[in-house]
């Protein structure tokens, strides 16, 4: 209890022993109260796959707040696209999500084809689908290994790289580029498949299936991995959707939504017998699990397409100098990382007037401030790895 006198003299303090003890406790608490620590993860940090920067405020090892800072790799592709012709732009968009470049080309080419009212021949669409799914497998195989590395197991990463190499060799044999195929043309493809591709592709798909089994045993089945990922970074379905989280990340939250099936029909997915995988949990583990199943599903789809590959040309008749008629087109596709969309505004010139590039990782990562709150530093790494983003796909 304290009583104070009017200003002018020292306050007269009546000391109560109980209050004194309380006071001492309070002081003790203040002394024990540790200040928050600001930890800067990135832009160069092994968990950020490039140049994402996370500023996290820590209390001990618990994250109080996280602020992703992006843009270290911003190349301004939307601006650059305004200065280039349509064929030149495909070389740019190869480099948005550089792990699945072929899949990036498809929606842009489709948008241009829709404006020009050109349709690629069926064989071209089949080959496009095969290569899209191949790049999906390549991307996911890397994820399956990389996620192991991020939670501390060094070996799965090498298995991921090893098996991805077979798929990349296939893509290179067909397109000439391992990472940047630039193989799509408005109205079809640059070239047909090389001799022996189908046989080689079949044997690679067998390897992919085996590789998936290996990851199932080495990573998914490992109790430490499960402890590290289960109920870590749960994305509720509705919140995820309103953040624009898409692709496997959203399907791992139980949303049965795949643009290959539910979007406007594109490529030849309608002809195939396949399944959309979902997982009800929405945590890091389910994101891993869904991607593992989707890798297998893609391999199955490719095998079906190899059997049903139609004959014929791979290029429709298009003028030599491509001028796209005036109009707007919006095409979104299910890319390995999620929904990738292009909004193309054309004014009848050889190049677009404006291209809005909607990349998947950008929206997927935008949920991080919400998602990271309250987890531990090691979980930050788990969550970052399980969301699976490519910096080029965030920064464009």
């Amino acid at each position, binding site marked *: 209890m304290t009583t104070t006198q009017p200003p002018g003299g020292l306050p007269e303090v009546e000391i109560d022993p109980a209050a004194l003890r309380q006071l001492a406790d309070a002081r003790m608490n203040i002394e024990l109260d540790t200040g928050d620590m600001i930890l*800067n993860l990135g832009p160069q940090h092994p968990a950020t796959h490039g140049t994402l920067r996370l500023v996290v405020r820590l209390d001990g090892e618990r994250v109080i707040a996280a602020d992703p800072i992006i843009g270290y790799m911003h190349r301004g592709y939307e601006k650059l696209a305004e200065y280039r012709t349509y064929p030149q732009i495909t070389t740019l968009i190869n480099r948005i999500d550089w792990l699945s470049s072929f899949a990036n080309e498809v929606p842009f080419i489709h948008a241009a084809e829709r404006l020009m009212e050109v349709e690629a021949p069926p064989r071209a669409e089949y080959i496009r689908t095969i290569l899209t799914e191949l790049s999906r497998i390549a991307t996911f195989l890397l994820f399956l290994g990389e996620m192991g*590395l991020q*939670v*501390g197991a060094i070996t799965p990463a090498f298995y991921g790289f090893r098996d991805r190499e077979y798929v990349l060799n296939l893509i290179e044999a067909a397109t000439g580029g391992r990472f940047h195929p630039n193989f799509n043309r408005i109205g079809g493809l640059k070239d047909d498949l090389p001799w022996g591709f189908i046989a080689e592709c079949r044997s690679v798909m067998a390897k992919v299936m085996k590789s998936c089994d290996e990851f199932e045993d080495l990573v998914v089945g490992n109790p*430490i991995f499960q402890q590290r990922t289960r109920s870590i970074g749960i994305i509720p379905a509705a919140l995820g959707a309103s953040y624009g989280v898409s692709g496997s990340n959203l399907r791992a939250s139980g949303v049965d939504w795949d643009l290959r099936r539910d979007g406007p029909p594109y490529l030849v997915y309608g002809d195939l017998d396949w399944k959309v995988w979902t997982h009800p949990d929405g945590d890091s583990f389910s994101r891993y699990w869904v991607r593992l199943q989707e890798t297998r599903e893609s391999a199955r789809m490719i095998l079906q397409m190899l059997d049903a590959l139609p004959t014929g040309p791979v290029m429709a008749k298009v003028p030599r100098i491509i001028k796209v008629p005036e109009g707007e087109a919006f095409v979104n596709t299910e890319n390995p990382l999620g929904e990738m969309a292009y909004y193309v505004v054309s004014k009848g010139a050889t190049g677009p007037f404006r291209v809005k590039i909607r990349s998947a990782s950008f929206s997927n990562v935008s949920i991080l401030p919400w998602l990271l709150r309250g987890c531990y*530093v090691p979980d930050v790494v788990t969550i970052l790895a399980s969301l699976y983003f490519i910096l080029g796909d965030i920064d464009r």
Partner: protein
Amino acid sequence: MSSLLAVDIGWGTTTAIKTLVVLGVVPLTALLLGYIFLLKMMSHMQSRLGPMDPGGFHGWYQLIGDGIKFLQKEDIMPAEADRKVFALAPAIVVMSTFLVFVVIPAGPRMVVRDLDVGVFYALAVSSLSVIGVLMAGWASSNKYALIGALRAAAQLIAYELPLVLAVVGVVIQTGTMSLQGIVGFQQDGAIFGFSGIGLPLILTQFVGFAIFMVAAQAELTQPPFDMPVAESELVSGYMVEYTGFRFLFFFIGEFGTAFAFSALAATLFLGGWSVPGVHGTAADVLGPAVLVVKVLFVAFLMFWARFTYPRFREDQLQALAWKWLIPIALANILVTGVLKVAF
């Protein structure tokens, strides 16, 4: 002891020779484990070959070359670092490794000092390294290093207990804390009258062996318990600011300690240098080779797990130590004690 080389050597000279031998043995063992397991076994487990060119034969020279490179490097110290502590930390880490080697016997007379409390001593000095780790983390004035060091401290405290408790079973059974005594017990023992392989204590103390291996893995901060260095989160934890020869010290400390713990496990549970029926000078000659083979076997188990498993989270590690390992180790002691009294 003075008749080691069949000539009369004074105490001072013997001590000097022993010191030099230990000084040489620690980096050598670190190189051995680093080369066999880190460079070669890991590479093959990952479907690759590892370094093949340096030295001509399977890249045997790689690590030596790396060591020389480290010595040539500029000694970088962060501007904000606590310079003296920063410089001292790696030395303390390595020192604890050196001290463990003092009591590990490689033959009846091939030991620097056979202490009566050898087990106790070895486990005590091995945990000195945590002081060096804490110093390194604090002095680096780096948040990653600090978190890493604090994790290391928490972890080493948690795992010191199961480590010690796992050994208690051995001590109860053999009735001695001297490592030579324990080896002798195993050499002269017999399994139901069959003395062909002696009595490796792993047969009776299997639970103790398993707990010792897990705890040793945690003491060595190897995956799945490598949170203090956690490559993907803390970059390198407490050693993040270290370069050049100071980093080399940490490296030697890491692999030297791995060897020391493997040697302890081999000595306590696999019979150490002993070959049943071989005594005297023959054992002195044969002993080191036998010990190294056993050590490599134990180290293989350690590194096998290291290259296969992901890492725990700090709280999960604590839970494992306090909820599982310590109770099991206590139960093991209880059972051993009861059986000891009963037989």
